[in-house]
Protein backbone atom coordinates (compact mmCIF):
# COMPACT_ATOMS: atom_id res chain seq x y z
CA UNK A 1 0.00 0.00 0.00
CA UNK A 2 1.52 3.26 -1.11
CA UNK A 3 1.58 5.68 1.79
CA UNK A 4 3.63 8.38 0.10
CA UNK A 5 2.09 11.77 -0.31
CA UNK A 6 3.23 11.84 -3.91
CA UNK A 7 1.19 10.13 -6.57
CA UNK A 8 2.02 6.75 -8.08
CA UNK A 9 5.13 6.92 -10.23
CA UNK A 10 4.42 7.05 -13.94
CA UNK A 11 6.31 4.35 -15.79
CA UNK A 12 6.93 5.40 -19.38
CA UNK A 13 5.08 3.33 -21.94
CA UNK A 14 7.18 2.07 -24.83
CA UNK A 15 4.88 3.42 -27.50
CA UNK A 16 4.25 6.82 -26.00
CA UNK A 17 7.66 8.34 -26.64
CA UNK A 18 7.65 7.49 -30.32
CA UNK A 19 4.13 8.84 -30.71
CA UNK A 20 5.08 12.31 -29.53
CA UNK A 21 6.88 12.99 -32.80
CA UNK A 22 3.68 12.72 -34.82
CA UNK A 23 0.93 15.28 -34.92
CA UNK A 24 -1.76 12.71 -34.48
CA UNK A 25 -2.05 10.01 -31.87
CA UNK A 26 -1.68 6.67 -33.64
CA UNK A 27 -3.61 4.43 -31.30
CA UNK A 28 -6.28 5.65 -28.92
CA UNK A 29 -8.19 3.54 -26.41
CA UNK A 30 -11.67 4.61 -25.41
CA UNK A 31 -13.12 2.97 -22.31
CA UNK A 32 -16.84 3.51 -21.98
CA UNK A 33 -19.10 3.10 -18.98
CA UNK A 34 -19.77 -0.31 -17.47
CA UNK A 35 -18.52 -0.11 -13.86
CA UNK A 36 -16.43 -3.14 -13.00
CA UNK A 37 -16.83 -4.62 -16.52
CA UNK A 38 -14.51 -1.85 -17.66
CA UNK A 39 -11.70 -3.97 -16.24
CA UNK A 40 -11.80 -5.62 -19.65
CA UNK A 41 -9.72 -2.64 -20.72
CA UNK A 42 -6.82 -4.12 -18.75
CA UNK A 43 -7.09 -7.22 -20.91
CA UNK A 44 -7.03 -5.02 -24.00
CA UNK A 45 -3.95 -3.26 -22.70
CA UNK A 46 -2.30 -6.67 -22.29
CA UNK A 47 -3.18 -7.74 -25.81
CA UNK A 48 -1.80 -4.48 -27.20
CA UNK A 49 1.40 -4.83 -25.19
CA UNK A 50 1.89 -8.38 -26.45
CA UNK A 51 1.49 -7.14 -30.01
CA UNK A 52 4.07 -4.42 -29.36
CA UNK A 53 1.52 -1.67 -29.85
CA UNK A 54 1.68 1.30 -27.52
CA UNK A 55 -1.16 3.59 -26.56
CA UNK A 56 -0.91 7.25 -27.56
CA UNK A 57 -4.14 8.43 -25.99
CA UNK A 58 -6.71 7.17 -23.49
CA UNK A 59 -10.27 8.33 -23.01
CA UNK A 60 -12.40 7.20 -20.07
CA UNK A 61 -16.05 7.58 -19.23
CA UNK A 62 -17.75 6.77 -15.95
CA UNK A 63 -16.23 3.53 -14.55
CA UNK A 64 -13.91 3.54 -17.54
CA UNK A 65 -12.32 6.73 -16.25
CA UNK A 66 -10.68 4.78 -13.45
CA UNK A 67 -9.00 2.35 -15.82
CA UNK A 68 -8.12 5.05 -18.31
CA UNK A 69 -6.43 7.01 -15.53
CA UNK A 70 -4.52 3.99 -14.25
CA UNK A 71 -3.21 3.27 -17.73
CA UNK A 72 -2.39 6.88 -18.45
CA UNK A 73 -0.42 7.01 -15.20
CA UNK A 74 1.73 4.24 -16.58
CA UNK A 75 0.62 1.28 -14.50
CA UNK A 76 1.22 -2.04 -16.21
CA UNK A 77 -1.84 -4.32 -16.44
CA UNK A 78 -1.18 -6.41 -13.32
CA UNK A 79 -0.79 -3.33 -11.15
CA UNK A 80 -3.99 -1.82 -12.53
CA UNK A 81 -5.85 -5.01 -11.75
CA UNK A 82 -4.52 -5.07 -8.21
CA UNK A 83 -5.26 -1.40 -7.54
CA UNK A 84 -8.80 -1.89 -8.83
CA UNK A 85 -9.43 -4.71 -6.39
CA UNK A 86 -8.41 -2.44 -3.53
CA UNK A 87 -10.17 0.66 -4.80
CA UNK A 88 -13.53 -0.54 -5.94
CA UNK A 89 -15.22 -2.38 -3.09
CA UNK A 90 -18.70 -2.59 -1.67
CA UNK A 91 -17.85 -0.15 1.11
CA UNK A 92 -17.86 2.68 -1.35
CA UNK A 93 -21.64 2.71 -1.48
CA UNK A 94 -22.43 1.26 1.87
CA UNK A 95 -22.63 4.45 3.85
CA UNK A 96 -25.94 6.11 3.35
CA UNK A 97 -26.19 9.81 3.17
CA UNK A 98 -28.85 10.33 5.80
CA UNK A 99 -29.31 13.96 5.06
CA UNK A 100 -30.00 13.13 1.42
CA UNK A 101 -32.64 10.62 2.43
CA UNK A 102 -34.40 13.29 4.45
CA UNK A 103 -34.07 15.73 1.59
CA UNK A 104 -35.68 13.23 -0.72
CA UNK A 105 -38.63 12.77 1.60
CA UNK A 106 -39.16 16.40 2.54
CA UNK A 107 -37.49 18.52 -0.12
CA UNK A 108 -38.72 21.93 0.91
CA UNK A 109 -38.27 21.48 4.63
CA UNK A 110 -34.84 19.92 4.30
CA UNK A 111 -33.76 22.40 1.61
CA UNK A 112 -33.21 19.97 -1.23
CA UNK A 113 -30.16 21.05 -3.15
CA UNK A 114 -29.59 19.16 -6.30
CA UNK A 115 -25.86 19.93 -6.16
CA UNK A 116 -25.54 18.06 -2.93
CA UNK A 117 -27.98 15.27 -3.57
CA UNK A 118 -26.60 11.78 -3.49
CA UNK A 119 -28.03 8.86 -1.60
CA UNK A 120 -24.59 7.54 -0.87
CA UNK A 121 -21.89 9.13 1.19
CA UNK A 122 -18.93 9.63 -1.10
CA UNK A 123 -16.19 9.95 1.50
CA UNK A 124 -14.85 6.43 1.07
CA UNK A 125 -14.84 6.74 -2.70
CA UNK A 126 -12.81 9.94 -2.47
CA UNK A 127 -10.39 8.40 0.01
CA UNK A 128 -9.83 5.42 -2.25
CA UNK A 129 -9.32 7.63 -5.30
CA UNK A 130 -6.82 9.71 -3.40
CA UNK A 131 -4.95 6.62 -2.33
CA UNK A 132 -4.70 5.51 -5.93
CA UNK A 133 -3.96 8.85 -7.59
CA UNK A 134 -2.96 11.33 -4.94
CA UNK A 135 -2.65 14.83 -6.35
CA UNK A 136 -1.90 13.60 -9.89
CA UNK A 137 -3.12 15.85 -12.66
CA UNK A 138 -4.72 14.74 -15.91
CA UNK A 139 -2.44 16.92 -18.04
CA UNK A 140 0.70 15.40 -16.46
CA UNK A 141 -0.07 11.80 -17.28
CA UNK A 142 2.49 9.77 -19.20
CA UNK A 143 -0.10 9.02 -21.86
CA UNK A 144 -2.48 11.85 -22.86
CA UNK A 145 -5.69 11.35 -20.92
CA UNK A 146 -9.21 12.68 -21.33
CA UNK A 147 -12.09 12.01 -18.97
CA UNK A 148 -15.68 12.73 -19.96
CA UNK A 149 -18.55 13.81 -17.76
CA UNK A 150 -21.91 15.45 -18.41
CA UNK A 151 -22.96 19.01 -17.70
CA UNK A 152 -25.86 18.59 -15.28
CA UNK A 153 -27.54 21.78 -16.46
CA UNK A 154 -27.84 21.03 -20.16
CA UNK A 155 -26.77 17.42 -20.71
CA UNK A 156 -23.76 18.27 -22.86
CA UNK A 157 -20.61 16.24 -22.79
CA UNK A 158 -17.75 17.86 -20.91
CA UNK A 159 -14.24 16.69 -21.67
CA UNK A 160 -11.77 17.04 -18.82
CA UNK A 161 -8.27 17.18 -20.22
CA UNK A 162 -6.73 18.91 -17.22
CA UNK A 163 -7.23 19.14 -13.51
CA UNK A 164 -6.97 16.62 -10.72
CA UNK A 165 -7.49 12.99 -11.70
CA UNK A 166 -9.56 12.40 -8.56
CA UNK A 167 -11.91 15.25 -9.51
CA UNK A 168 -12.21 13.93 -13.05
CA UNK A 169 -13.10 10.40 -11.98
CA UNK A 170 -15.46 11.56 -9.25
CA UNK A 171 -17.32 13.72 -11.79
CA UNK A 172 -17.31 11.11 -14.52
CA UNK A 173 -18.59 8.37 -12.24
CA UNK A 174 -21.18 10.53 -10.47
CA UNK A 175 -23.98 8.05 -11.02
CA UNK A 176 -27.24 9.98 -10.63
CA UNK A 177 -28.92 9.56 -7.24
CA UNK A 178 -26.12 7.34 -5.97
CA UNK A 179 -23.55 10.09 -5.77
CA UNK A 180 -24.08 13.80 -5.82
CA UNK A 181 -23.02 15.77 -8.88
CA UNK A 182 -19.48 17.11 -8.68
CA UNK A 183 -18.44 20.67 -9.29
CA UNK A 184 -15.43 21.19 -11.56
CA UNK A 185 -14.40 24.67 -12.73
CA UNK A 186 -17.71 26.13 -11.67
CA UNK A 187 -19.79 23.57 -13.59
CA UNK A 188 -21.88 20.90 -11.96
CA UNK A 189 -21.01 17.56 -13.57
CA UNK A 190 -22.60 14.14 -13.52
CA UNK A 191 -21.92 10.70 -14.93
CA UNK A 192 -20.42 10.78 -18.42
CA UNK A 193 -22.68 8.03 -19.70
CA UNK A 194 -25.62 10.46 -19.83
CA UNK A 195 -24.09 12.36 -22.73
CA UNK A 196 -22.21 9.52 -24.38
CA UNK A 197 -21.63 6.07 -22.83
CA UNK A 198 -18.58 5.48 -25.03
CA UNK A 199 -17.04 8.80 -26.08
CA UNK A 200 -15.17 7.84 -29.21
CA UNK A 201 -15.72 11.39 -30.49
CA UNK A 202 -12.96 12.66 -28.20
CA UNK A 203 -10.44 10.45 -29.97
CA UNK A 204 -11.89 11.42 -33.34
CA UNK A 205 -11.55 15.10 -32.49
CA UNK A 206 -7.88 14.65 -31.67
CA UNK A 207 -7.27 13.00 -35.00
CA UNK A 208 -6.33 9.60 -33.59
CA UNK A 209 -5.57 7.18 -36.35
CA UNK A 210 -6.86 3.88 -35.03
CA UNK A 211 -9.37 3.95 -32.21
CA UNK A 212 -9.93 0.89 -30.06
CA UNK A 213 -13.19 1.22 -28.19
CA UNK A 214 -14.66 -0.89 -25.43
CA UNK A 215 -18.05 -0.20 -23.91
CA UNK A 216 -21.03 -1.96 -22.44
CA UNK A 217 -24.75 -1.70 -22.83
CA UNK A 218 -26.76 -0.90 -19.75
CA UNK A 219 -28.16 -4.15 -18.41
CA UNK A 220 -31.81 -4.94 -18.88
CA UNK A 221 -33.95 -5.96 -15.94
CA UNK A 222 -34.43 -9.66 -15.25
CA UNK A 223 -38.09 -9.12 -14.61
CA UNK A 224 -40.35 -6.09 -14.63
CA UNK A 225 -42.13 -6.54 -11.35
CA UNK A 226 -42.57 -2.93 -10.39
CA UNK A 227 -42.87 0.54 -11.82
CA UNK A 228 -39.40 1.25 -10.46
CA UNK A 229 -37.88 -1.62 -12.41
CA UNK A 230 -39.85 -0.58 -15.44
CA UNK A 231 -38.42 2.92 -15.14
CA UNK A 232 -34.90 1.48 -14.95
CA UNK A 233 -35.65 -0.65 -17.98
CA UNK A 234 -36.69 2.41 -19.95
CA UNK A 235 -33.61 4.23 -18.83
CA UNK A 236 -31.45 1.34 -20.04
CA UNK A 237 -33.24 1.18 -23.36
CA UNK A 238 -32.69 4.86 -24.00
CA UNK A 239 -29.08 4.77 -22.84
CA UNK A 240 -28.38 1.87 -25.13
CA UNK A 241 -30.03 3.62 -28.04
CA UNK A 242 -27.82 6.62 -27.30
CA UNK A 243 -24.73 4.42 -27.19
CA UNK A 244 -25.47 2.82 -30.54
CA UNK A 245 -26.49 6.06 -32.16
CA UNK A 246 -23.39 7.91 -31.00
CA UNK A 247 -21.18 5.04 -32.06
CA UNK A 248 -22.75 4.91 -35.51
CA UNK A 249 -22.20 8.62 -36.01
CA UNK A 250 -18.67 8.57 -34.69
CA UNK A 251 -17.69 5.67 -36.92
CA UNK A 252 -18.89 7.57 -39.96
CA UNK A 253 -17.21 10.75 -38.85
CA UNK A 254 -13.84 9.12 -38.31
CA UNK A 255 -11.35 9.15 -41.14
CA UNK A 256 -9.90 5.77 -40.24
CA UNK A 257 -11.03 2.77 -38.22
CA UNK A 258 -12.88 2.45 -34.98
CA UNK A 259 -12.39 -1.07 -33.69
CA UNK A 260 -15.08 -2.05 -31.24
CA UNK A 261 -13.87 -4.66 -28.79
CA UNK A 262 -16.81 -6.59 -27.41
CA UNK A 263 -15.84 -8.86 -24.55
CA UNK A 264 -18.21 -11.78 -24.12
CA UNK A 265 -19.07 -11.22 -20.49
CA UNK A 266 -21.68 -13.91 -20.07
CA UNK A 267 -21.98 -13.92 -16.33
CA UNK A 268 -24.11 -11.32 -14.69
CA UNK A 269 -21.73 -8.79 -13.17
CA UNK A 270 -23.05 -6.69 -10.33
CA UNK A 271 -21.72 -3.29 -9.38
CA UNK A 272 -19.02 -4.52 -7.04
CA UNK A 273 -18.25 -8.00 -8.30
CA UNK A 274 -14.50 -7.35 -8.16
CA UNK A 275 -13.94 -11.07 -7.57
CA UNK A 276 -14.89 -11.48 -11.21
CA UNK A 277 -12.23 -9.03 -12.40
CA UNK A 278 -9.75 -11.75 -13.49
CA UNK A 279 -12.49 -13.33 -15.62
CA UNK A 280 -13.42 -9.97 -17.11
CA UNK A 281 -9.80 -9.15 -17.91
CA UNK A 282 -9.40 -12.49 -19.64
CA UNK A 283 -12.47 -11.92 -21.79
CA UNK A 284 -11.23 -8.45 -22.62
CA UNK A 285 -7.88 -9.84 -23.71
CA UNK A 286 -9.51 -12.56 -25.77
CA UNK A 287 -11.80 -10.11 -27.57
CA UNK A 288 -8.91 -7.72 -28.22
CA UNK A 289 -6.71 -10.52 -29.48
CA UNK A 290 -9.15 -11.09 -32.35
CA UNK A 291 -8.60 -7.54 -33.54
CA UNK A 292 -4.81 -7.52 -33.29
CA UNK A 293 -3.94 -8.80 -36.78
CA UNK A 294 -6.16 -6.19 -38.45
CA UNK A 295 -4.94 -3.49 -36.09
CA UNK A 296 -1.34 -4.22 -37.03
CA UNK A 297 -2.18 -4.05 -40.72
CA UNK A 298 -3.91 -0.71 -40.25
CA UNK A 299 -0.94 0.77 -38.43
CA UNK A 300 1.47 -0.45 -41.05
CA UNK A 301 -0.67 1.02 -43.80
CA UNK A 302 -1.43 4.31 -42.08
CA UNK A 303 2.10 5.10 -40.98
CA UNK A 304 1.68 8.87 -40.90
CA UNK A 305 4.27 11.21 -42.36
CA UNK A 306 5.93 13.15 -39.56
CA UNK A 307 5.19 16.84 -39.76
CA UNK A 308 7.47 19.64 -38.87
CA UNK A 309 5.96 21.86 -36.21
Amino acid sequence: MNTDASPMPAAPDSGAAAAQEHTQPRVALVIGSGSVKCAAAIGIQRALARAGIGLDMVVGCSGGAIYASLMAAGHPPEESAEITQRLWTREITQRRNRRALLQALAPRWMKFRVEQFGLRDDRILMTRLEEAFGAARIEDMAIPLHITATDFANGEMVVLSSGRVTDGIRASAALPFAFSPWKVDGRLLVDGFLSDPMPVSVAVKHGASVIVAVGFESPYQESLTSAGRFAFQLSSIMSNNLLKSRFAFQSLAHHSEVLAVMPAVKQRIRLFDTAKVPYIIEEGERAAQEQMPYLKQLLARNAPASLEA
Partner: protein
Amino acid sequence: MTGPVPAAARRRPRTALVIGSGALKCIAAFGAVKVLRQEGIGIDMVVGCSGGCFCAVWIAQGAGDADAEAARFSRGWEGSFDAISYRRLALACLPSIAKTDRRFALLDDRRVNAAIADYVGERTFADASLPLYLVATDAASGEKVVLSDGRLFDAIRASIAIPLILPPWTVAGQDLVDGGVSDPLPIDVAMREGADVIIAMGFEEHIEGARSGLLQQLLHLKSLTVNNLIRSQYAFYSVTHHAEVILLKPEFDRPVGLRALHHVPYLLEEGERAARAQVPYLRRLLGLAMQPTEVG
Protein backbone atom coordinates in the same frame (compact mmCIF):
# COMPACT_ATOMS: atom_id res chain seq x y z
CA MET B 1 -20.58 10.75 -52.37
CA THR B 2 -21.63 13.94 -50.75
CA GLY B 3 -22.61 16.01 -53.76
CA PRO B 4 -25.88 17.87 -54.15
CA VAL B 5 -29.00 16.37 -55.72
CA PRO B 6 -27.86 16.29 -59.35
CA ALA B 7 -29.57 18.89 -61.51
CA ALA B 8 -29.31 16.45 -64.37
CA ALA B 9 -31.82 14.22 -62.59
CA ARG B 10 -34.51 16.80 -63.38
CA ARG B 11 -37.11 15.21 -61.18
CA ARG B 12 -38.72 16.89 -58.25
CA PRO B 13 -37.00 15.61 -55.13
CA ARG B 14 -39.25 13.26 -53.19
CA THR B 15 -40.02 15.19 -50.04
CA ALA B 16 -40.87 13.63 -46.71
CA LEU B 17 -42.10 15.24 -43.52
CA VAL B 18 -41.13 13.54 -40.28
CA ILE B 19 -42.84 14.73 -37.12
CA GLY B 20 -41.15 13.52 -33.96
CA SER B 21 -42.37 12.96 -30.44
CA GLY B 22 -43.02 15.85 -28.07
CA ALA B 23 -46.44 15.32 -26.52
CA LEU B 24 -48.45 18.51 -26.71
CA LYS B 25 -45.55 20.42 -28.32
CA CYS B 26 -46.26 18.49 -31.50
CA ILE B 27 -49.21 20.76 -32.18
CA ALA B 28 -46.60 23.22 -33.47
CA ALA B 29 -46.41 20.94 -36.50
CA PHE B 30 -49.79 22.24 -37.66
CA GLY B 31 -48.31 25.73 -37.75
CA ALA B 32 -45.27 24.53 -39.65
CA VAL B 33 -47.34 22.69 -42.23
CA LYS B 34 -49.49 25.78 -42.74
CA VAL B 35 -46.36 27.72 -43.72
CA LEU B 36 -45.00 24.94 -45.94
CA ARG B 37 -48.24 24.79 -47.86
CA GLN B 38 -48.40 28.57 -48.21
CA GLU B 39 -44.95 28.42 -49.78
CA GLY B 40 -45.94 25.71 -52.22
CA ILE B 41 -43.70 23.07 -50.66
CA GLY B 42 -45.28 19.73 -51.48
CA ILE B 43 -45.07 16.69 -49.23
CA ASP B 44 -44.89 13.21 -50.76
CA MET B 45 -44.64 11.08 -47.63
CA VAL B 46 -45.28 11.46 -43.91
CA VAL B 47 -43.77 9.83 -40.85
CA GLY B 48 -45.21 10.38 -37.38
CA CYS B 49 -43.95 9.43 -33.95
CA SER B 50 -45.88 9.68 -30.70
CA GLY B 51 -47.54 13.11 -30.45
CA GLY B 52 -46.47 13.76 -34.05
CA CYS B 53 -48.91 11.12 -35.31
CA PHE B 54 -51.92 13.41 -35.25
CA CYS B 55 -50.53 15.99 -37.62
CA ALA B 56 -48.99 13.23 -39.75
CA VAL B 57 -52.34 11.52 -40.13
CA TRP B 58 -54.04 14.81 -40.97
CA ILE B 59 -51.53 15.53 -43.75
CA ALA B 60 -51.79 12.01 -45.13
CA GLN B 61 -55.54 12.37 -45.34
CA GLY B 62 -55.40 15.47 -47.51
CA ALA B 63 -54.94 18.20 -44.89
CA GLY B 64 -57.64 20.85 -44.70
CA ASP B 65 -57.35 24.05 -42.72
CA ALA B 66 -54.42 23.89 -40.31
CA ASP B 67 -55.85 26.21 -37.66
CA ALA B 68 -59.20 24.45 -37.66
CA GLU B 69 -57.49 21.10 -37.36
CA ALA B 70 -55.29 22.29 -34.52
CA ALA B 71 -58.39 23.50 -32.69
CA ARG B 72 -60.13 20.18 -33.26
CA PHE B 73 -57.06 18.35 -32.00
CA SER B 74 -56.95 20.55 -28.85
CA ARG B 75 -60.58 19.88 -28.07
CA GLY B 76 -59.99 16.18 -28.34
CA TRP B 77 -56.86 16.39 -26.19
CA GLU B 78 -58.60 18.33 -23.42
CA GLY B 79 -59.39 16.14 -20.46
CA SER B 80 -57.69 13.10 -21.93
CA PHE B 81 -54.95 13.26 -19.36
CA ASP B 82 -57.01 14.00 -16.29
CA ALA B 83 -58.21 10.57 -15.27
CA ILE B 84 -55.57 9.17 -12.99
CA SER B 85 -56.17 5.57 -12.12
CA TYR B 86 -55.45 5.17 -8.44
CA ARG B 87 -55.70 1.44 -8.61
CA ARG B 88 -52.90 1.37 -11.13
CA LEU B 89 -50.88 3.84 -9.10
CA ALA B 90 -51.20 1.65 -6.02
CA LEU B 91 -50.21 -1.47 -7.91
CA ALA B 92 -47.16 0.31 -9.22
CA CYS B 93 -45.97 0.92 -5.67
CA LEU B 94 -46.26 -2.69 -4.54
CA PRO B 95 -43.54 -4.62 -6.32
CA SER B 96 -44.03 -7.93 -4.61
CA ILE B 97 -47.77 -7.98 -5.10
CA ALA B 98 -48.03 -6.57 -8.60
CA LYS B 99 -48.02 -9.06 -11.41
CA THR B 100 -45.03 -9.28 -13.67
CA ASP B 101 -46.64 -6.94 -16.09
CA ARG B 102 -45.58 -4.12 -18.32
CA ARG B 103 -48.95 -2.53 -18.11
CA PHE B 104 -48.19 -0.01 -15.38
CA ALA B 105 -49.83 3.26 -16.16
CA LEU B 106 -50.98 6.21 -14.15
CA LEU B 107 -53.85 7.07 -16.42
CA ASP B 108 -57.07 5.40 -17.27
CA ASP B 109 -56.99 5.42 -21.05
CA ARG B 110 -60.71 5.47 -21.76
CA ARG B 111 -60.85 9.17 -22.49
CA VAL B 112 -57.69 9.11 -24.60
CA ASN B 113 -59.09 6.20 -26.59
CA ALA B 114 -62.37 8.03 -27.15
CA ALA B 115 -60.48 11.12 -28.32
CA ILE B 116 -58.42 9.15 -30.83
CA ALA B 117 -61.50 7.31 -32.06
CA ASP B 118 -63.17 10.66 -32.59
CA TYR B 119 -60.12 11.85 -34.53
CA VAL B 120 -59.77 8.92 -36.95
CA GLY B 121 -62.83 6.72 -36.55
CA GLU B 122 -62.36 3.37 -38.21
CA ARG B 123 -60.13 4.66 -41.01
CA THR B 124 -57.15 2.64 -42.04
CA PHE B 125 -53.77 3.37 -43.59
CA ALA B 126 -55.28 2.41 -46.93
CA ASP B 127 -57.59 5.41 -46.66
CA ALA B 128 -54.64 7.79 -46.61
CA SER B 129 -53.81 9.61 -49.85
CA LEU B 130 -50.09 9.76 -49.07
CA PRO B 131 -47.68 7.09 -47.90
CA LEU B 132 -47.93 7.23 -44.09
CA TYR B 133 -45.74 5.58 -41.46
CA LEU B 134 -46.33 5.72 -37.72
CA VAL B 135 -43.63 4.61 -35.31
CA ALA B 136 -43.96 2.78 -32.01
CA THR B 137 -41.63 0.73 -29.80
CA ASP B 138 -41.68 -2.95 -28.93
CA ALA B 139 -42.24 -2.98 -25.15
CA ALA B 140 -40.15 -6.10 -24.67
CA SER B 141 -37.09 -5.40 -26.80
CA GLY B 142 -37.08 -1.61 -27.00
CA GLU B 143 -36.85 -1.80 -30.77
CA LYS B 144 -38.54 0.51 -33.24
CA VAL B 145 -41.70 -0.79 -34.89
CA VAL B 146 -43.00 0.91 -38.05
CA LEU B 147 -46.75 0.67 -38.61
CA SER B 148 -48.07 1.20 -42.11
CA ASP B 149 -51.23 -0.82 -42.37
CA GLY B 150 -54.32 -1.65 -40.40
CA ARG B 151 -56.40 0.74 -38.35
CA LEU B 152 -55.06 4.23 -37.76
CA PHE B 153 -56.54 4.11 -34.28
CA ASP B 154 -54.33 1.19 -33.27
CA ALA B 155 -51.19 2.77 -34.66
CA ILE B 156 -51.77 6.14 -33.02
CA ARG B 157 -52.74 4.61 -29.69
CA ALA B 158 -49.59 2.48 -29.71
CA SER B 159 -47.32 5.32 -30.76
CA ILE B 160 -48.48 7.67 -28.00
CA ALA B 161 -48.39 5.06 -25.22
CA ILE B 162 -46.04 7.04 -22.98
CA PRO B 163 -44.54 4.56 -20.51
CA LEU B 164 -45.99 4.73 -17.01
CA ILE B 165 -48.58 7.28 -18.14
CA LEU B 166 -50.64 5.26 -20.62
CA PRO B 167 -50.94 1.48 -20.83
CA PRO B 168 -49.16 -0.20 -23.74
CA TRP B 169 -51.26 -1.18 -26.76
CA THR B 170 -51.24 -4.54 -28.45
CA VAL B 171 -51.11 -4.58 -32.24
CA ALA B 172 -50.90 -7.89 -34.10
CA GLY B 173 -49.90 -9.66 -30.92
CA GLN B 174 -47.07 -7.26 -30.12
CA ASP B 175 -47.08 -5.06 -27.00
CA LEU B 176 -46.22 -1.58 -28.19
CA VAL B 177 -45.31 1.64 -26.40
CA ASP B 178 -44.33 5.21 -27.21
CA GLY B 179 -42.29 5.48 -30.40
CA GLY B 180 -40.15 8.12 -28.73
CA VAL B 181 -38.52 5.47 -26.54
CA SER B 182 -36.71 3.90 -29.47
CA ASP B 183 -36.32 6.96 -31.67
CA PRO B 184 -37.87 10.37 -30.95
CA LEU B 185 -37.32 11.60 -34.52
CA PRO B 186 -37.40 8.60 -36.91
CA ILE B 187 -35.79 10.12 -39.98
CA ASP B 188 -34.50 6.71 -41.02
CA VAL B 189 -38.01 5.58 -41.95
CA ALA B 190 -38.17 8.32 -44.57
CA MET B 191 -34.67 7.45 -45.74
CA ARG B 192 -35.56 3.81 -46.18
CA GLU B 193 -38.71 4.67 -48.08
CA GLY B 194 -36.79 6.63 -50.68
CA ALA B 195 -37.22 10.23 -49.63
CA ASP B 196 -34.70 12.75 -50.97
CA VAL B 197 -35.47 15.90 -49.03
CA ILE B 198 -36.50 15.11 -45.49
CA ILE B 199 -38.07 17.87 -43.44
CA ALA B 200 -37.75 16.70 -39.87
CA MET B 201 -39.61 18.45 -37.09
CA GLY B 202 -38.21 17.64 -33.68
CA PHE B 203 -39.10 18.81 -30.21
CA GLU B 204 -36.56 18.89 -27.44
CA GLU B 205 -37.62 18.59 -23.86
CA HIS B 206 -37.47 21.79 -21.91
CA ILE B 207 -34.66 21.91 -19.39
CA GLU B 208 -35.66 23.63 -16.19
CA GLY B 209 -33.34 25.88 -14.25
CA ALA B 210 -34.27 25.08 -10.66
CA ARG B 211 -34.81 21.53 -9.62
CA SER B 212 -36.47 21.28 -6.28
CA GLY B 213 -37.06 17.64 -5.58
CA LEU B 214 -36.30 14.03 -6.30
CA LEU B 215 -39.02 13.59 -8.91
CA GLN B 216 -37.95 16.77 -10.66
CA GLN B 217 -34.40 15.51 -10.76
CA LEU B 218 -35.57 12.23 -12.24
CA LEU B 219 -37.54 14.01 -14.93
CA HIS B 220 -34.64 16.37 -15.55
CA LEU B 221 -32.25 13.50 -16.17
CA LYS B 222 -34.79 11.81 -18.40
CA SER B 223 -35.10 15.02 -20.43
CA LEU B 224 -31.34 15.27 -20.82
CA THR B 225 -31.23 11.71 -22.13
CA VAL B 226 -34.11 12.23 -24.56
CA ASN B 227 -32.53 15.41 -25.94
CA ASN B 228 -29.16 13.73 -26.34
CA LEU B 229 -30.82 10.84 -28.14
CA ILE B 230 -32.67 13.18 -30.52
CA ARG B 231 -29.44 14.98 -31.39
CA SER B 232 -27.45 11.84 -31.71
CA GLN B 233 -29.95 10.20 -34.05
CA TYR B 234 -30.27 13.37 -36.09
CA ALA B 235 -26.49 13.62 -36.42
CA PHE B 236 -26.26 10.05 -37.61
CA TYR B 237 -29.05 10.33 -40.14
CA SER B 238 -27.74 13.64 -41.47
CA VAL B 239 -24.43 12.09 -42.18
CA THR B 240 -25.78 8.91 -43.77
CA HIS B 241 -28.47 10.37 -45.98
CA HIS B 242 -27.69 10.87 -49.64
CA ALA B 243 -29.53 14.18 -49.94
CA GLU B 244 -30.87 16.73 -47.48
CA VAL B 245 -32.24 16.49 -43.96
CA ILE B 246 -33.69 19.81 -42.90
CA LEU B 247 -34.39 20.23 -39.24
CA LEU B 248 -37.29 22.32 -38.03
CA LYS B 249 -36.74 22.72 -34.34
CA PRO B 250 -38.78 25.29 -32.47
CA GLU B 251 -36.99 26.82 -29.49
CA PHE B 252 -39.67 26.96 -26.86
CA ASP B 253 -38.99 29.30 -23.98
CA ARG B 254 -41.20 27.48 -21.50
CA PRO B 255 -42.03 23.95 -20.34
CA VAL B 256 -45.15 22.54 -22.00
CA GLY B 257 -46.79 19.79 -19.99
CA LEU B 258 -49.39 17.32 -21.11
CA ARG B 259 -52.24 19.55 -19.95
CA ALA B 260 -50.91 22.93 -21.07
CA LEU B 261 -53.57 23.65 -23.68
CA HIS B 262 -53.38 27.37 -22.92
CA HIS B 263 -50.03 27.37 -24.70
CA VAL B 264 -51.50 26.21 -28.01
CA PRO B 265 -51.46 29.62 -29.76
CA TYR B 266 -47.83 30.06 -28.74
CA LEU B 267 -46.97 26.57 -29.95
CA LEU B 268 -48.60 27.15 -33.33
CA GLU B 269 -46.75 30.44 -33.71
CA GLU B 270 -43.39 28.86 -32.90
CA GLY B 271 -44.12 26.07 -35.37
CA GLU B 272 -44.73 28.65 -38.09
CA ARG B 273 -41.55 30.49 -37.14
CA ALA B 274 -39.43 27.35 -37.27
CA ALA B 275 -40.74 26.53 -40.74
CA ARG B 276 -40.25 30.06 -42.05
CA ALA B 277 -36.58 29.98 -41.04
CA GLN B 278 -35.97 27.11 -43.45
CA VAL B 279 -38.23 28.23 -46.27
CA PRO B 280 -35.60 30.22 -48.25
CA TYR B 281 -33.28 27.25 -48.51
CA LEU B 282 -36.16 24.81 -49.08
CA ARG B 283 -37.39 26.82 -52.02
CA ARG B 284 -33.91 26.96 -53.54
CA LEU B 285 -33.42 23.28 -52.93
CA LEU B 286 -36.69 22.13 -54.39
CA GLY B 287 -36.45 24.52 -57.32
CA LEU B 288 -33.14 22.98 -58.31
CA ALA B 289 -34.59 20.18 -60.36
CA MET B 290 -36.61 22.61 -62.40
CA GLN B 291 -33.93 25.13 -63.27
CA PRO B 292 -30.44 24.95 -64.70
CA THR B 293 -27.76 24.87 -62.04
CA GLU B 294 -26.50 28.26 -61.00
CA VAL B 295 -23.22 28.86 -59.33
CA GLY B 296 -24.07 29.66 -55.69
